[in-house]
């Protein structure tokens, strides 16, 4: 294609984008002569340029548009939404023609006379009755013949001069000028001087430059490496200088690739405006931080997700005006986009003040789609429920409109953002609006990466995904354990699923020599954490990301390749792909699903450890509660005064058999699950550890059988869930009875108020183990009766939603009573959004904890109890 035409296409497309934005502004501020002047000029320039290039179709459409704009400018025509919509239609038509020209290099055949007649009819002062919504729909095609003829006929009837070229507009530049002459020159002038001092460069040129710079960086690194072996010589100083210059150059080119995020936002005002017209709402779009810069590659990737979210906000989020007024909100809804830099990342916040997500609808949909069961939902907070919209195939739209619900769901949005190492969070308050927060890296081209080795091959792992490094060996405290042949690592009391890089990439088999040291790279992808086992870890390096070779595109494990200082080419691992592959692998296995523990960020599933007992029946315990798995030498187990203990990390650890008829082995190994609590540990002796499975936490509370919480369907089988609390108390009461008999503990007293036996069972043993005397009540009324009758309590821990008397009423009643003014009270609820917490505190609770974060509940509770008992002047009356 002729480069002149190419230039024209680029230039005109840019002008059209500006026109979209400016027209939307203009519609709101029709009296702003400056905006109108700018719009008029842009349209005029397009028309003028078409004349030079011999593009009659474009010229005619642009001319009609310019004609109307001229009449706006001269005050001959009122600015109405219908009129603006027509101009926008003209812009769309121009865009259509341009895009066809991009394909063929020539103006496509077509007929614009209907559109032009419509525009001219309006220019001649005809009202445009209610056309806005209707005509927006047909801008993809041309009107059918009859309709077209009718329009033309009507137009001609009304405007006999139509056949001639549009009437010459009385030029009245003065009207548009005053703004320019009188005022506000400062800001625009500064803007345009920046424009004047900038040049347009082909993206390829910059990409090429980037490649050259990576080569330069490589050569520099090679030189530095040569120099390292030498004692000081005359090359040292110039080499250092070269090194600095190269870094500066690299920075410079990286900056060249940066573009303001406003570029990705340019289409949004138009989209929101059209949506507002179509849905008959009033919507303000506020854009803040549009000049925040980020890499153009990143910009391209987030463009569509952003558009999608803004669309969603406009279509579903913002309510119709009447509904808003009824809810006491301003009639016009507001969507706010805000971008800003923080700690090497770009944050983009998209918020609206609409109705918020429809939790009920999400709940129904989640059940209908089989994502969750009713009892599980009951234990989830609203914030947890709304996260379902990120699941594949989940569209929140109750009815699919032409606007959203196009099959691109929030799952695609999340996938796109996570693919570039970003993350997305969402919160929504019913009646108040929804907010998304996106975090993305500044650039993808040069990243800081950790260089690791597996089977003598080096790999780079993007630093952004790396949380920490752990050295492991058979001899150290931290070691890799195997559960059903899948490796896991117990790290600070959390079990981390592992992936062996050797295994994953089919490199040489792991050598399991004694005392061999390897490393675990703890990586995070989205909310999932997992470990990658490697042989060695080198340095971190700034690496230049080169696209992955076509031959490797089929494998999900690589993000690209790079060249290191010593000239070797290495592959960059894609933690995202590895996490997915690992999940896939375990899913194929069908039963062992350790890796899924990595998904613990998704709170609706829990990992369970399955173990065997003397009977054939398997028992399960939530994996989160297990601190460690040990295979103890039978010989190391001592039998003292009717109890079994073992020397464990410089302490004596009590062992409790799960089964009272447990046969302690005389030789060989004894499998033990170690539980830790407040610095103490106890071991639960079991027959064997069978597996770790991941399933929904749906426990049927049941039987009063000692030591069991109830049962749940795990991996398709009804399995008993073990109540660890029972064994903890067993170990420790016995322990203290025997060993610390002399110690007199003035036991502090806690009152636990909860209608759920499950939660009482979860909390009470923990408190008992921490030396509390615990009394429990099933609701507020019962709790008040106990408080009246019983000795004073040192702390009250209460649920919120309970029959008879809920937590809020209960707290208020307690606070009304002089005797209990300073009594520390902690609320524990499955609903814990900001609003709930506020209400709880207002009612008199000192702390408010969420039950949802079950794995960390004991820890959080302990911390909160320490805090409130210390902060409170409350002293037990006794």
């Amino acid at each position: 294609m002729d480069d002149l035409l190419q230039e024209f296409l680029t230039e005109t497309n840019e002008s059209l984008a500006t026109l979209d934005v400016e027209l939307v502004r203009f519609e709101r501020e029709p009296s702003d002569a400056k905006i109108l002047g700018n719009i008029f000029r842009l349209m005029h320039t397009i028309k003028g340029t078409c004349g030079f290039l011999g593009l009659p179709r474009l010229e005619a459409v642009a001319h009609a548009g310019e004609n109307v704009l001229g009449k706006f400018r001269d005050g001959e025509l009122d600015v109405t939404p219908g009129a603006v919509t027509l101009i926008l239609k003209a812009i769309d038509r121009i865009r259509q023609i341009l895009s066809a020209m991009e394909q063929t290099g020539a103006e496509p055949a077509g007929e614009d006379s209907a559109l032009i007649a419509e525009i001219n009819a309006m220019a001649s002062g005809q009202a445009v009755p209610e056309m806005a919504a209707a005509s927006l729909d047909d801008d993809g095609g041309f009107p059918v013949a009859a309709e077209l003829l009718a329009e033309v006929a009507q137009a001609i009837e009304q405007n006999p001069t139509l056949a001639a070229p549009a009437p010459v507009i009385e030029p009245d530049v003065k009207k548009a000028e005053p703004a320019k002459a009188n005022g506000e020159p400062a800001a625009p002038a500064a803007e345009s001087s920046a424009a004047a001092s900038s040049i347009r460069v082909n993206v390829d040129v910059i990409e090429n430059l980037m490649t050259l710079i990576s080569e330069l960086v490589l050569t520099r690194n090679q030189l530095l490496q040569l120099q390292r072996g030498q004692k000081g010589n005359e090359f040292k100083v110039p080499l250092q200088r070269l090194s600095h210059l190269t870094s500066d150059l690299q920075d410079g080119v990286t900056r060249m690739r940066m573009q303001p995020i406003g570029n990705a936002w340019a289409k949004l005002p138009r989209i929101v405006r059209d949506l507002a017209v179509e849905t008959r709402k009033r919507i303000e779009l506020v854009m803040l931080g549009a000049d925040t810069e980020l890499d153009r590659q990143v910009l391209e990737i987030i463009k569509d997700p952003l558009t999608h979210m803004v669309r969603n906000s406009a279509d579903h989020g913002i309510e119709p005006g009447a509904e808003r007024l009824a809810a006491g909100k301003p009639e016009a809804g507001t969507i706010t986009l805000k971008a800003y830099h923080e700690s090497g990342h770009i944050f983009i916040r998209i918020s609206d003040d609409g109705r918020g997500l429809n939790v009920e609808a999400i709940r129904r949909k989640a059940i209908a789609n089989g994502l969750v069961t009713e009892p599980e939902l009951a234990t989830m907070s609203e914030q947890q429920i709304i996260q379902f919209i990120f699941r594949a195939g989940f569209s929140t739209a109750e009815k699919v409109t032409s606007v959203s619900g196009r099959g691109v769901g929030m799952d695609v949005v999340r996938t796109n953002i996570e693919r570039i190492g970003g993350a997305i969070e969402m919160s929504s308050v019913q009646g108040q609006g929804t907010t998304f927060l996106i975090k993305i890296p500044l650039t993808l081209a040069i990243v800081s990466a950790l260089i690791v080795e597996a089977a003598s091959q080096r790999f780079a792992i993007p630093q952004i995904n790396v949380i920490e490094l752990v050295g492991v060996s058979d001899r150290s405290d931290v070691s890799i354990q195997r559960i059903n042949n899948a490796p896991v690592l117990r790290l600070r009391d959390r079990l981390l699923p592992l992936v062996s890089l050797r295994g994953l990439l089919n490199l040489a088999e792991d050598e399991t020599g004694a005392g061999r040291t390897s490393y675990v790279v703890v990586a995070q992808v989205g909310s999932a954490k997992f470990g990658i086992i490697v042989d060695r870890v080198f340095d971190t390096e700034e690496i230049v990301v080169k696209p992955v070779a076509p031959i490797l595109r089929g494998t999900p494990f690589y993000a690209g390749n790079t060249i290191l200082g010593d000239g070797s080419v290495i592959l960059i691992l894609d933690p995202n792909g590895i996490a997915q592959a690992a999940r896939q692998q375990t899913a194929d296995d069908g039963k062992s699903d350790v890796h899924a523990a990595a998904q613990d960020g998704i709170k609706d599933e829990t990992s369970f450890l399955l173990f065997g007992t003397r009977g054939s029946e398997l028992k399960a315990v939530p994996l989160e509660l297990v601190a460690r798995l040990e295979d103890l030498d039978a010989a190391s187990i001592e039998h003292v005064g009717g109890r079994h203990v073992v020397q464990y990390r410089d302490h004596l650890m009590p062992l409790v058999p799960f089964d009272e008829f447990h046969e302690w082995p005389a030789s060989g190994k004894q499998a033990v699950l170690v539980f830790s609590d407040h610095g103490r540990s106890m071991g639960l002796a079991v027959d064997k550890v069978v597996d770790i499975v991941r399933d929904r936490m749906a426990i049927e509370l049941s039987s009063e059988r000692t030591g069991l919480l109830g049962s749940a369907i795990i991996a398709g089988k009804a399995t008993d869930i073990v109540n660890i609390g029972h064994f903890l108390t067993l170990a420790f009461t016995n322990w203290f009875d025997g060993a610390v008999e002399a110690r007199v503990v003035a036991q502090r007293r806690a009152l636990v108020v909860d209608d759920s036996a499950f939660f009482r069972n979860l909390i009470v043993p923990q408190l008992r183990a921490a030396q509390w005397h615990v009394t429990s009540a099933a609701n507020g009324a019962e709790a008040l009766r106990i408080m009246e009758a019983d000795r004073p309590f040192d702390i009250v821990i209460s649920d919120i939603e309970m029959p008879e008397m809920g937590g809020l009423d209960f707290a208020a009643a307690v606070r009304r009573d002089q005797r209990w003014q300073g009594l520390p009270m902690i609320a524990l609820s499955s609903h814990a959004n900001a609003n709930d917490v506020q209400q709880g505190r207002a009612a008199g609770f000192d702390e408010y904890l969420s039950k949802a974060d079950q794995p960390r509940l004991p820890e959080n509770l302990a911390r909160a109890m320490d805090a409130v008992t210390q902060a409170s002047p409350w002293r037990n009356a006794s």
Partner: protein
Amino acid sequence: MTSIYKADAVFGDDSEETFSVAPRFCLIVDDSATIRRFSARLLNAMNFVVGEAEHGVAAVEACRLVVPDLILLDWNMPEMDGLACLKAVRAMDLQPRPMIVMCTTENVLPKITEALAAGADEYIMKPFDRDVLRDKLAQLELI
């Protein structure tokens, strides 16, 4: 009007011509990059060296650096329009005095007298082609 798809028809084979005189300098002032490039081709073929400015402010700036022999000045531009630019350039009293040709469309045609009064030497209707431009420049004895 010739279509650009037959570029030769527009630009002819003038590029083959040899010129005996030193090239003159023309400043093209237009907010459309396409038109600037188009005009530059025509002018290059007529032995002009070409400079470009996308609005009046940039044009005035350019005149401070090099005094052009000819300024092709568009009317409708951001920042500073053609008429204001014309006045600003004339106020600089450049030596030797550059020829200024206003590029106009039907919209601003009635104002051309004002431009001529303010110091424009000639005007040319947009869109123009090689022959029209050549005639205008010949009238001004620039070629």
